[in-house]
């Protein structure tokens, strides 16, 4: 069993779980994810490793309660309980290079939108540790949803906070923040954008005219996470890739986001049914 040793409720719908797993904490690299099964009848769901601490032997997940499995986890996964299964770290780690071709330290812009803020953190930290200049661009709906600001400040040379309503940082979307960062730093060597598909696509369109390498972390529906089912296939540069073993990071300028968005809706009806049934059961309980 995999014990939960810490939990933080970040907002009404977002929470973090810190799980003890010393081998995984040692093996984890930025860009990797795990597959979690919270109980024996549960589904296998992918979650990004949002933080890992080899010394403490723990990994941290930040989870948004959106449907049956994640809402059930929000309710049942408390400190002292265990996860039924957690497999990983999965996916190809993000390559972190200490210098650009010219030998100068690279400038990296890390963009996180909403829940994407958590998964982009290990990348920001790794680039920072490798000596890069790191610009953080974080977007939230409003100030109450802001989280991990201080963790980012520790590893970012500059941080641009954006909120939809202007209640914290500047008012606007992460794409506005990204534009500001690129104006200030035309030498930017790479942009890493993680968040909902629409946001990643929008970031790709911001960087495309500048020809800046942009990497996104794709989140198609997964089952095994080991390359065995093909459910996570995505189209990148006209080729079929399995996000769990060929990704999840891909070149944003080559990703077919329409394909991703339509495949993410595949089980919409079943997911709604599962949610409705679960809510009925919860109300009775």
């Amino acid at each position, binding site marked *: 069993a995999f014990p939960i040793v810490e939990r933080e409720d970040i907002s009404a719908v977002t929470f973090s779980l810190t799980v003890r797993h010393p081998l995984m904490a040692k093996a984890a690299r930025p860009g990797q994810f795990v597959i979690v099964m919270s109980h024996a009848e549960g589904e296998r769901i992918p979650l990004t490793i949002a933080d890992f601490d080899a010394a403490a032997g723990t990994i941290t997940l930040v989870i948004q309660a959106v449907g049956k499995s994640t809402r059930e986890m929000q309710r049942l996964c408390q400190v002292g309980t265990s996860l039924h299964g957690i497999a990983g770290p999965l996916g190809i780690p993000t390559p972190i290079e200490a210098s650009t071709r010219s030998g100068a330290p690279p400038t990296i812009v890390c963009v996180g939108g909403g829940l994407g803020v958590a998964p982009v953190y290990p990348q920001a930290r790794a680039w920072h540790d490798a000596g890069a200049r790191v610009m953080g661009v974080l977007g939230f709906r409003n100030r109450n949803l802001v989280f991990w600001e201080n963790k980012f400040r520790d590893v970012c040379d500059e941080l641009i906070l954006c909120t939809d309503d202007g209640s914290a940082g500047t008012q606007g979307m992460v794409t506005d923040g990204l534009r500001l960062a690129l104006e200030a730093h035309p030498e930017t060597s790479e942009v890493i954008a993680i968040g909902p598909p629409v946001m990643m696509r929008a970031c790709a369109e911001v960087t495309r005219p500048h020809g800046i390498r942009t990497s996104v972390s794709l989140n198609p529906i997964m089952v*095994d996470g*080991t390359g*065995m089912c093909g459910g996570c296939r995505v189209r990148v540069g006209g080729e*079929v890739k*399995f996000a769990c*073993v060929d990704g999840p990071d891909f070149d944003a300028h080559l990703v077919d986001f329409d394909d991703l968005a339509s495949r993410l809706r595949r089980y919409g009806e079943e997911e709604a049914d599962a949610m409705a049934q679960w809510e009925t059961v919860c109300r009775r309980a």
Partner: protein
Amino acid sequence: MAAKRTIRSIPQERTPVREQPPLERARNFVEVNLGYDASEAAREAQRCLFCADQPCVRGCPVSIDIPGFIRQICHEDHQGAYDTIARTNLLPAVCGRVCPQENQCEGVCTVGESLEPVAIGRLERYVGDLAIANDWARRPYISPTAYRVGIVGSGPAGMACAADLAKAGCQVTVFEALHLPGGVLRYGIPDFRLPGEVIDAEVANLEKLGVRFECNTVVGRLFTIEQMLEDLGFDAVFIGTGAGYPTMLGIPGDSLGGVLSANELLTRANLMQARDFPVHDTPIPLGKQVAVVGAGNTAMDAMRVCLRLGAEQVHCIYRRSRTEAPARAEEVHHAEQEGIEFHWLTNPVAVLDDGAGNVRAMRCVHMELGEPDDSGRRRPVPIPGSEFEFPCDQVVFAIGTNANPIIGQTSRLTLNRWGYLQTDDDLATSIDGVFAGGDIVTGAATVIEAMGAGRTAAAGIVRHLGIRD
């Protein structure tokens, strides 16, 4: 001694096996083939001629002493029959059910030259089931050694290797990426062909031999093969990770909603028990008109699962003819009985969109058989102008699998040009102390061949470690 049996003296008809009626079973996940009872097994055992040249033994990839165990059934020495089989086959209850017997032991049985061959597989299953029910598993006295061996993958190759090494006194740990052990036996082959309890029983037998199973462990990612030897204290490693990476057809429309690989469908249905959605949380797509492309065991399993999930009609689309279909004969027969419609010499060229991102139909073309290809089978070629639309709302590809890339991505092991692990005759890989076998070496093959490879590698590991018995 009784008079020598001859082809005229033995029961002429192969003893039929009881099966659930086709229309009933096509709606449930209970086992189709109910197996022989004691008198049926005894009768079928009477049909063996105990041939001096034993062609059946040579037809079996692990050379089970077939006449030997059948003779023991005749003498009602069932436990002896089990011991005879278990000398070479660790999983009789599994192989008796899933071996392609018609190409192996039964395909060369002498009786088969004039009558239906002896039902070797059914007899083997009968003995294997008795062994499970009575807990006859052989647990020899083991003299422990200090050697630790790590096994990667818990399919038949890994299980067989683990058993032999445990018996040789090694401390064996099996690492499995998924949350349950068994490999394809667990996630691929459905309960109506191989009930989960049979796999549970075989896993429990291994545990009784001292084998430890560590699930949720993706080797290569949680730790590498090299780290197993250098940091984790394993003296040798066996890799049996299978060939589970599914091929998509690469035709237009193959990422539409409703198009999936057979592996995905079967994993959802079997491993994740999506057939009980929403009691189990994993959803599964439910088509009314399902087209499954391919005609191997995987295709048959996918089709029959769809039928049981409630599809109105399930179709098999295959570019060659029935003769070339690679599935076990029994599976094709069962699928036909259950009402699957077969469309031989038909190939899909595109999956068509209903306008909302889901499948409306497939565009197919009729094929004819031309000159033989590399595999010796006649190559299917499209008949010009024969394209037609095939209405369906779900498409399942069961057209083969490749090597899983994770071990290749994360170790220095030498791969061949198709991505499979390169090994020598002892199944040793390019890294000293690391052995490999099963589908990850040969490409998709059979349960019994994977099991045999696991045993060959175990022998190689025993020699490598210098263990004597």
